């Protein structure tokens, strides 16, 4: 398989929740993150995620390069590779995968040809409390043979699911307890290296 044409993507609860909490921690700017995992047959398992940046300079290369080198180094020792990219737009009603996101996604695609791009769907996040939905509140994009990122429509069997069906319920729980204020991202680490971008204590 040379592209994400037929892959399914399963994201583990902790990886999923971390990304959404990161977005909630920085409501007034765009945020992004890296997805880590492995390929098992036709399924890409996203087992971990690392929140990257929240500053308005999200499109700059130096912090991104440092982050990717460091993250790849750390997770390869655990047998995991970079398998995708997460992005949340600055504005509530912006559901487009912008050029900065696409460029970073292209960068990440070089690590893993079946990589996925997940874009936070703010409307679904807002509706989560009222509508009990097990589907992840993100849009899935994959790169086709035309080398552009296309959104995968969620008709019939969804190609993006959470591993644990109750992930959204756990997410809502964390949101109501303001758990998002505990999230540390790579930007925080670069500003203060005592901050742990691995968020190792987050779910304990």
């Amino acid at each position, binding site marked *: 398989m040379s592209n994400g044409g037929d892959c399914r993507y399963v994201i583990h609860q902790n990886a999923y929740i971390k990304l959404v909490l990161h977005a909630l921690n920085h409501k007034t700017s765009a945020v992004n993150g890296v997805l880590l995992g492995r390929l098992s047959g036709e399924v890409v398992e996203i087992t971990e995620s690392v929140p990257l940046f929240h500053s308005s300079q999200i*499109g*700059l290369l130096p912090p991104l390069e*440092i982050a990717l*080198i460091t993250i790849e180094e750390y997770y390869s020792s655990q047998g995991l590779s970079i398998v995708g990219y997460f992005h949340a737009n600055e504005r509530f009603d912006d559901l487009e995968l912008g050029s900065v996101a696409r460029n970073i996604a292209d960068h990440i695609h070089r690590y893993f040809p079946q990589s996925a791009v997940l874009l936070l769907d703010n409307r679904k996040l807002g509706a989560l409390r009222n509508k009990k939905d097990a589907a992840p509140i993100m849009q899935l994009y994959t790169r086709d043979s035309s080398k552009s990122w296309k959104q995968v429509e969620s008709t019939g069997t969804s190609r993006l699911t959470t591993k644990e069906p109750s992930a959204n319920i756990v997410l809502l729980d964390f949101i109501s307890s303001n758990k998002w204020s505990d999230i540390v991202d790579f930007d925080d680490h670069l500003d203060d*290296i005592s901050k742990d971008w691995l968020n190792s204590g987050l779910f304990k």
Partner: protein
Amino acid sequence: MVSKTEESLLRQLENQVENGGGGAWEYLSLVRKLKLRRSDKVLKHGLILLNDPKKRSALGPDEWTLYEQVAIAALDCQCLDVGKDCIKVLQKKFPDSKRVGRLEAMLLEAKGSWAEAEKAYTSLLEDNALDQVISMRRVAMAKARGDILGAIDWLNKYLEIFMADHDAWRELAEIYLSLQMYKQAAFCYEELILAQPTIPLHHLAYADVLYTIGGLENLQTAKKYYASTIELTGGKNTRALYGVCLCTSAIAQLTKGKNNEDKEISKLAAAALEKDYKQISPDKVSLLGSALKTMKLQ
């Protein structure tokens, strides 16, 4: 821009207030002074003060400033009723006030009534063409509507008049970055460095943009600005230290090692990083080591 002492004071006050330890007015005043966006906390604690008649009268004339601060925070959190109530109180106290007029227009903005807000701002500007805050609202509205090119247009017009507004130059640079217009962003940072040559953040941002544009000359210049950042921050800026290493590595890659590049500075930067990590973040020292090794091998 907030200094480190101001930031720790803010965090301390924030923790205190959030955990019921009082100090709400000091916290709100600090947020106002530093012009920070902490709308959810301002709304929560500001309302507690305003809804307590004893605390409210203890504020004296500052009561009205608090109403304004809470109104804006309420609009930011989409609590339009609270915003409207605060604005009504201010309208009663200060009828025909331009400052309150501005809040009314911001309420229209928050409701999404863009055309009406635009009309309100235009009429406010007729009487006072040099009102910076209102001129800025135009930029903010364009940005909120997703009209990024319009925002750039308004911001450039604004800067023709108020060219000493450094925050505006930074905002413009960041908008250019979001559109990947790196050369234009670089120009903004150049203006900022000329205006405020001792602010390290400008040097750092400029270096980051030059590195992102790429090319040998830009990488060499970026390295110089990372170096000046290191100098201005006494070697304490992690991003600049990493930046020097990245530049050295990228330049070596571009020239295939065939130049007399000064590798001394990146050795010093790497050593400084290792020292800092050993002291502050020891569990990540070996990770840093492998990352630096990757860069040298590249």
